[in-house]
């Protein structure tokens, strides 16, 4: 039996003195895809941000173990170096640094070694082609003036390049048209080779038409109220989250 990749035990999180997560438990093994669904305000994005170490959220109880070590003392960049990645719901726009230069710096920082410029350029080009991104985006400032769809592609591109052990996808499919969802799904499939894992946070199932999850969890009011297989997705489509309200 392999040890769990991610183990969240009785996690309690506050933001500005308001409790958001109220004793959340979750375990993931290497190679698994988990989906977290839930109504707005249930704590889905909070979970994503807390896993990455956002300073705004205060962990008041419980544990997060990743690859067998406690991540609570680690800063966001150290978590990234350990193999965690977050695809943001609303990616930031950063002026003055091109997507390519930024991603090369990030790759060097995550892998803790020098990145060869030409080799990197080739890798980037290949992944951008896969994601149907125009090559000139590499020379544009990071996410600046990108459309909603291009921003999400940029997130998936970063995921493919940085190649984390566990990618958390926070509402990556929300606000995307059918075509963009198809491209994002293509990227996700490329990423999900044998031992890479994924935690997909969503509140609709468009992405799930392309990707078969191993487990589905319902997050309601700061707790996971039900877990099961892919069939749960259909169930929630029919019954809605209301059935699970505390």
């Amino acid at each position: 039996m392999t040890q769990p990749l991610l183990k969240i035990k009785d996690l309690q999180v506050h933001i500005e003195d308001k409790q958001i997560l109220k004793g959340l438990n979750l375990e993931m093994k290497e190679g698994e895809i988990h989906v977290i669904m839930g109504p707005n305000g249930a704590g889905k994005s909070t979970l994503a941000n807390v896993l990455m170490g956002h300073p705004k959220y205060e962990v008041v109880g419980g544990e997060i173990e990743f690859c067998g070590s406690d991540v609570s003392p680690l800063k966001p960049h150290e978590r990234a170096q350990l193999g965690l990645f977050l695809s943001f719901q609303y990616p930031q726009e950063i002026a003055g640094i091109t997507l390519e230069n930024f991603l090369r710096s990030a790759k060097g920082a995550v892998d803790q070694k020098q990145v060869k410029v030409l080799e990197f350029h080739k890798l980037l080009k290949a992944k951008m082609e896969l994601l149907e991104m125009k090559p000139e985006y590499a020379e544009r400032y990071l996410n600046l003036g990108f459309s909603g769809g291009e921003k999400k592609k940029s997130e998936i591109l970063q995921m493919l390049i940085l190649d984390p052990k566990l990618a958390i996808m926070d509402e990556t499919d929300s606000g995307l048209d059918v075509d963009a969802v198809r491209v994002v799904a293509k990227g996700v499939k490329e990423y999900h080779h044998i031992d890479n894992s994924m935690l997909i946070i969503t509140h609709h199932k468009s992405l799930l038409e392309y990707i078969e999850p191993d487990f589905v969890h319902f997050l309601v009011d700061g707790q996971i109220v039900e877990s099961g297989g892919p069939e749960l997705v259909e169930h929630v489509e029919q019954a809605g989250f209301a059935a699970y309200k505390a």
Partner: protein
Amino acid sequence: MTRNKTYVADIERKLYDQRNPFTYSHKTDKGLTPEIIREISAQKNEPEWMLEFRLRSLETYYQLDLPPWGPNLIELDIDNIVTYVKPIVDRQYSWEDIPDDIKQTFDLLGIPKAEHEFLAGVGAQYDSEVVYHSIQESVAKEGVVYLDMETAVHEYEDLIKEYFMSLVTPRDHKFAALHGAVWSGGSFVYIPAGVKVEIPLQSYFRSNAPGAGQFEHTLIIVEPGSYLHFIEGCSAPRYSVNNLHAGCVELFVREGSTLRYSTIENWSRNMFNLNTKRALVERDGAIEWVSGSFGSKVSMLYPMSILQGERARAEFTGVTFAGGGQILDTGAKVVHAAPHTTSTINTKSISKGGGTAIYRGLIKVTKNAYHSKSTVSCESLILDNESISDTIPVMQIDTDQVDLGHEAKIGRISDEAIFYLMTRGIDEEEARAMIVRGFVEPISKELPLEYAVEMNNLVKLELEGTIG
């Protein structure tokens, strides 16, 4: 969670703060009297008309008051500033002949190396006098003149007499009058019609003497259809007494010519930098200002472009970095005085550690300047809660047929942006540096390469504390 304050390092000044023992061959007494003016003029062996010009300027200086707006200049005690300091060296045309301590200063600043590698000519001024001046033979052959002002007064007396302080007159303001009275050093450049100087000329102004003023005069004439890139660098070591820099730059851009004027100013933090720069641009001509202001205690600097001929064009690109104890009041002025003229002003400022960065600018469009266009964009980044930034744009428009755009943004580094970068494996310090460098990037790419590198070093950030 405790959060320490973010600390951004001061600009590394070690290099600039190298001071040499203060030696001189001639130095005027402190304060300002006609006798001192006569003494300066006699030292320079000037023609009578220049002495008279100086004495008239001194009269004007006495008559004018300090400006009623802008930073407080009370601390500036002109009576305690030595106006003229002549280093113990005559002007040389070979670096070998310059005394070791002075040569070493310029070596450290990288000037001879830069001359060797990518400049067409170099002037180096130490305190009040130019100690070195040279120009590449190939450039000189085309009729390009690049001289220190003292030599130019003798060799090109008619030109100097006609143009000297005709664009910035001593009546302009109190410090222009002061400049007219005590000016010393600087450069004279003349580019004949149709000559395009492909590699830049550079003058470097170094102030070493404590409690002294620097009053260099730069006069450039680019005749029709020519091109020049002129680079000006300034620095000084720090002393406990205040210094004053009141230079003057007059640029004459003839029909269809382009002049690019780049300045990197990194005076020490006891310098009052009250500099006046002005360009007169004729038909189809262009002035391109690139300006980096990093040093000084107080700066008041608003280069002015007068677009006198049709389709004349002005571009101003500026970056200001104000640290603790600094008040940098900078900007640009453009007068559209002919039809179809255009101006573009782009500035960025960073303030930190209690520093103040102000953009102050003027766009004036005269009645006959129809179909003119002006775009102004000012962005400020404030790195902490003690620092101040403000934008004071003034527009005086006397015609309806004009296209004007103004945009001002004042911001801080967002915690969400830092978090975003950190989730990509980049530590907080580097994440901040990336954002600050990215902020000034559109400007730094306009700077001459060696200065762009220097500017990136300036924003090298040292941080303690944490967001994560």
